[in-house]
């Protein structure tokens, strides 16, 4: 066994592994003759979240709601426009202040797996070299890094003798995703951010990779942030779930609470939009009409109001804040906030 242990736990079990407060990322839109800024895409607009040690936090939402941007902020592949991140009690990137953690140390402890298994591998390198690359960069001797790579290949179910010298194009999509997972584990991270890791895979292969992720979490003592637009997959793998809409968190809570008693009208519609899997139970009315609005010009007040069947005047005026529905379960809707001015305020638990 040449794999080193992960970095030690600092803050203790009760200290969340990662917390963010008010993360913001706006992308400028340039256009016109001189490439002047015409506006901005409010991709992530004040996201606060908590990832507890050893859990899987699922993030769901429709295309463009800001899931990948959130992932890239968590990975610090993007700099947030505002907001802060605390990793195991240390402010990320604020080591200058004393007590913080440097970006370099942070990036060793947090790794990411992307949806597109092909684009994220170097086509000209045998896969064991790809996996050994990051440890070598971090000063692990070449022979040891290679041995580590072979151990990881075995851990993700690819027999090293058969696969180590293969190139990415000699692998199936599911096998390539296993390589990406092995690579993410090479530096022994504590947190792995999985952005749609099974979305490009066929169902029969998806189940293999999900089982693998469950096993690795156990054997490597990992914490996951698992991003997907597939509500069934998120329900399967997550302990807690965060629902995003147009760059913001609309609901957060334990997985069973969210799926059994969704509090936000958007979450309810999203869950009701899943195909029934029972042809005798077909419906005739869709839960929602229309498409999600453009994040360049999000609606005022509650961003869901243009599609919400319960929208009232207050919803256009005041952005709802998160209200607690049960311990650890919050929803940002005026109906959940007593005294908000919505006629059904307090009546959300229907």
């Amino acid at each position, binding site marked *: 066994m040449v794999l080193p242990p992960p970095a030690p736990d600092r803050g203790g079990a009760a200290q969340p592994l990662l917390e963010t407060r008010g993360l913001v990322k706006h992308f400028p839109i340039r256009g016109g003759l001189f490439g002047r800024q015409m506006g901005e895409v409010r991709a992530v607009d004040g996201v606060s979240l908590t990832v507890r040690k050893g859990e899987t936090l699922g993030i769901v939402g*429709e*295309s463009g709601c800001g899931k990948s941007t959130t992932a890239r902020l968590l990975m610090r592949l993007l700099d947030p426009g505002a907001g802060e991140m605390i990793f195991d009690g240390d402010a990320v990137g604020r080591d200058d202040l004393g007590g913080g953690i440097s970006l370099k140390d942070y990036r060793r402890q947090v790794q990411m797996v992307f949806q597109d298994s092909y684009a994220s591998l170097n086509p000209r390198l045998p896969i064991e070299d790809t996996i050994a690359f990051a440890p070598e960069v971090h000063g692990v001797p070449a022979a040891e890094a290679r041995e580590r790579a072979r151990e990881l290949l075995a851990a993700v179910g690819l027999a090293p003798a058969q696969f180590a010298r293969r190139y990415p194009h000699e692998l*199936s*999509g*599911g*096998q390539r995703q296993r390589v990406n997972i092995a690579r993410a584990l090479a530096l022994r991270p504590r947190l792995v951010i999985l952005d749609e890791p099974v979305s490009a895979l*066929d*169902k*029969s*292969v*998806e*189940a*293999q990779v*999900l*089982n693998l992720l*469950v096993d690795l979490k156990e054997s490597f003592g990992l914490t996951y942030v698992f991003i997907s*637009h*597939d*509500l*069934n*997959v998120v*329900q*399967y793998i997550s302990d807690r779930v965060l629902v995003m809409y147009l760059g913001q968190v609309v609901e957060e809570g334990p*997985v069973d609470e969210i*799926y059994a008693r969704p509090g936000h009208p958007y979450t309810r*519609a*999203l869950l009701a*939009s*899943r*195909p*029934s*899997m*029972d*042809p*005798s139970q*077909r*419906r*005739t*009315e*869709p*839960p*929602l*009409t*229309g*498409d*999600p609005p453009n994040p360049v010009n999000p609606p005022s007040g509650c961003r869901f109001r243009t599609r919400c069947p319960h929208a009232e005047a207050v919803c256009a005026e005041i952005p709802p804040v998160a209200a607690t529905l049960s311990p650890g379960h919050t929803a940002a809707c005026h109906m959940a906030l007593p005294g908000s001015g919505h006629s059904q305020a307090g009546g959300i638990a229907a």
Partner: protein
Amino acid sequence: MSAALKPTPEAPLIRLRDLHVKFESRDRTVHAVNGVDLDLAAGEVLCILGESGSGKSVTLRALMKLLPKTAKVTGEIKVGGRDVQAMNESQLADFRGGDVAMIFQEPMTALDPVFTIGRQIAETVQRHEGASRSAADARALELLELVQIPSAKRRLSAYPHELSGGLRQRAMIAVALACRPKLLLADEPTTALDATVQIQVLLLLRSLQEQLGMGVVFVTHDLGVAGEIADRVAVMYAGKVVEEGPVGALMAGPLHPYAKGLLGATVHAGMRGKRLTTIPGAPPMLDKVPTGCAFAPRCAEVIEGCHTGVPALRQIVPGRQARCILVAPGEG
């Protein structure tokens, strides 16, 4: 209505027999479709369900003679009793977009970016039905309303890029329905859409299919989508249909080991904490025609006889067929 397509009980809307499609290039041969038989009755919705590379799109394109020149196509392809393979270019031009229309996953492949939505629909109506400009324009408005595009009148003058994903998909459906086709071929038209928009488009397609009495072949890799829209399902694996039957029966109790594995591996509610059943390995490369059961390398029930010949697609109970030597007629 076009006179050419009048399916009778003897001549179903689609009759496909022993379809083979092979792609040959200098360095690669792909046996994409290896003997597919399918029938579609008028007004029926058939889903072709299968994993990536199983030959769904190639089968669908063969029905419209839309495959590239590198494709070697053999077998009987009849649509509305007419031999599609024998059609010349001008016959095909009438056939496509008239009697038979097709919709795709990516609407921009079917829409022309330089013309407004209204013009594209009207153009199709004028070309196929010889309608006057004003009659065609009126029909365009009617169609946008039919596919439930809000503010339809205003949207007539919109260009495709000015519409959201869901509206673009609806616009493509409107173009496809312009000449009241009897047969609609749909290649994963909702796969790229968000959950809340996908269900809208599925329900729309189903209600249009019922209203217009169209036959539909709908390609998908998503069992749940098939459950929402299909009358019958054909499960494809490695270029062959391995199971076929009514959607309810198939989803409640698949017969073929691959179909069973697929159903078991599809994550759905209530599986939390349980280990998912999987199908080991991956589908075959298709550089050679399989000489035995193509699923044998991954099948948990494989026996000696599975390798010695290609299992036949047999009727197991009336209306249900499976291609497996262990699934015997009378079971099910």
